[in-house]
């Protein structure tokens, strides 16, 4: 299907840089969990055992923080994508782990439309991705409505990346505000191949998964094998709704995806997503938002099933929250709910709000729509609640501090 859709040649290519070896798993160190919420951000500092946690926050009380990310290349620069219900979006930067923040000089913004044409405005920056290890200070940002931006100065100033934002075909695939997520359609899951800074992926809700191998000069859709909602035409990329795509650090040829319509795996160079969610129990199904992968084992991934029946309640299934994990690339799944509420817990978890750390065993973290932060020190077997009564959690990230 997508084979018929030609690659799009866009604007100038990014500069080529040296290839780097894939990032290695992190050693145990002091742990940091970065929590973005609808009313501010919190940093949770944990000891090496991940047992004792200190909450640092709120930062930006009352501002919507969509994503808060630590730059793994310098271990100290934080970027926070912020907006409020009432002011235009912006971004803040800290180089001292949040002790002080400075607003960036030029947040992402679309080009001004020509006279007589209707231009787009960035409602908020939704997703932040540090670029390749060999590109210090370079970041990518995905916005709502869908836009792709790049900064080459540590997030201080942002420019549209690659001509995609104004490309007529991509604009058609982005659809309208009506086609997207309730709080606006999003460009997300910006992924940089650890072997090659010119090889990038991103996803759009709605608009499909896309790839470039030449630093953004050409983009190709990567949606073969992905289902769309019954009654829609899978040939139209505007109907494809990937919720979260992750690349395995231990095998950059493997990607996992949680889609509106199922769980998928892609093993490059294949371009055909294989649906691996059909091995989930029938009563659970394979709808959800987050997708989390193991830092060192490409056969291990975790999802958080959500009720996508009937009118899409977007709650846990039957009020009984659970994680499902696979240790064989999706051939089978195991329910992981030890310590989670057994009944009458109707929260769910947004696409950016589940993350793994680099510890051994891997620590897993997720933040709920009801403002609870949960963690597991044993790859999902047993869960404990780290914090509750926070505002609605939008994103959870982890970092190890040396």
């Amino acid at each position, binding site marked *: 299907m997508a084979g018929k859709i030609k690659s799009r040649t866009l604007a100038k290519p990014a500069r080529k840089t040296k290839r780097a070896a894939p990032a290695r798993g992190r050693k145990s160190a002091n742990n940091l969990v970065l929590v973005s919420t609808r009313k501010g951000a919190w940093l949770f500092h944990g000891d090496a055992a991940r047992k004792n946690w200190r909450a640092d926050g709120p930062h930006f009380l009352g501002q919507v923080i969509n994503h808060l990310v630590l730059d793994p290349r310098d271990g100290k620069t934080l970027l926070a994508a912020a907006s409020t*219900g*009432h002011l*235009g979006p*912006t971004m803040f930067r800290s180089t001292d782990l949040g002790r002080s923040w400075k607003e960036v*000089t030029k947040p992402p913004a679309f080009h001004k439309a020509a006279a007589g044409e209707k231009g787009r405005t960035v409602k908020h920056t939704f997703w932040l991705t540090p670029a390749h290890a060999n590109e210090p200070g370079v970041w990518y940002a995905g916005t709502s409505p869908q836009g792709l931006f790049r900064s080459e100065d540590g997030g201080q100033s942002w420019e549209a990346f690659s001509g995609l934002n104004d490309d007529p075909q991509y604009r058609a695939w982005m659809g309208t505000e009506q086609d997207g997520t309730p709080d606006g359609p999003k460009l997300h899951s910006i992924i940089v191949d650890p072997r090659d800074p010119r090889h990038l992926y991103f996803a759009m809700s709605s608009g499909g998964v896309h790839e470039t191998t030449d630093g953004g000069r050409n983009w190709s859709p990567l949606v073969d094998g992905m289902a769309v909602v019954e009654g829609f035409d899978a040939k139209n990329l505007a109907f494809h709704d990937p919720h979260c795509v992750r690349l395995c650090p231990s095998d950059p040829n493997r990607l996992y995806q949680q889609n509106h319509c199922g769980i998928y795996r892609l093993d490059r160079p294949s371009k055909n997503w294989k649906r691996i969610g059909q091995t989930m129990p029938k009563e659970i199904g394979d709808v959800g938002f987050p997708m989390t992968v193991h830092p060192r084992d490409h056969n291990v991934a975790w999802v958080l099933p959500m009720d996508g029946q009937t009118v899409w309640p977007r709650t846990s299934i039957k009020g009984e929250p659970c994680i499902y994990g696979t240790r064989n690339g999706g051939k089978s799944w195991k329910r992981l709910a030890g310590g989670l509420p057994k009944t009458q817990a109707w929260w769910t978890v947004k696409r950016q709000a589940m993350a793994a750390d680099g510890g051994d065993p891997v620590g897993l973290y997720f933040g709920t729509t009801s403002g609870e932060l949960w963690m597991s020190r044993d790859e999902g077997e047993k869960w404990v609640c780290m914090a509750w009564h926070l505002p609605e959690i939008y994103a959870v990230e982890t970092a190890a501090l040396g």
Partner: protein
Amino acid sequence: MQVFIPTPLRSYTVQSFVEAQGGTLAALLADLDRRFPGIRFRMVDEQQQIRRHIRVFVNGLQVFDLAHGLQPADEVFVVQALSGG
């Protein structure tokens, strides 16, 4: 001229009234942004539209057009229309 700044934007100005100059609203906002970098984009989007929840009053009358002319003695109030939860 004196410009009133609403509380959500006082992280930029600290003061509730600040001094800025300009023969039009656009010029005034550009001057404000020079004095308080970043403040303009929180009020005006990249398509040069005043953002949905920002209201600007000149001598008590709401102004919608950035080309609106201003006199040195005008009183400009920027107000935040709050909504939502």
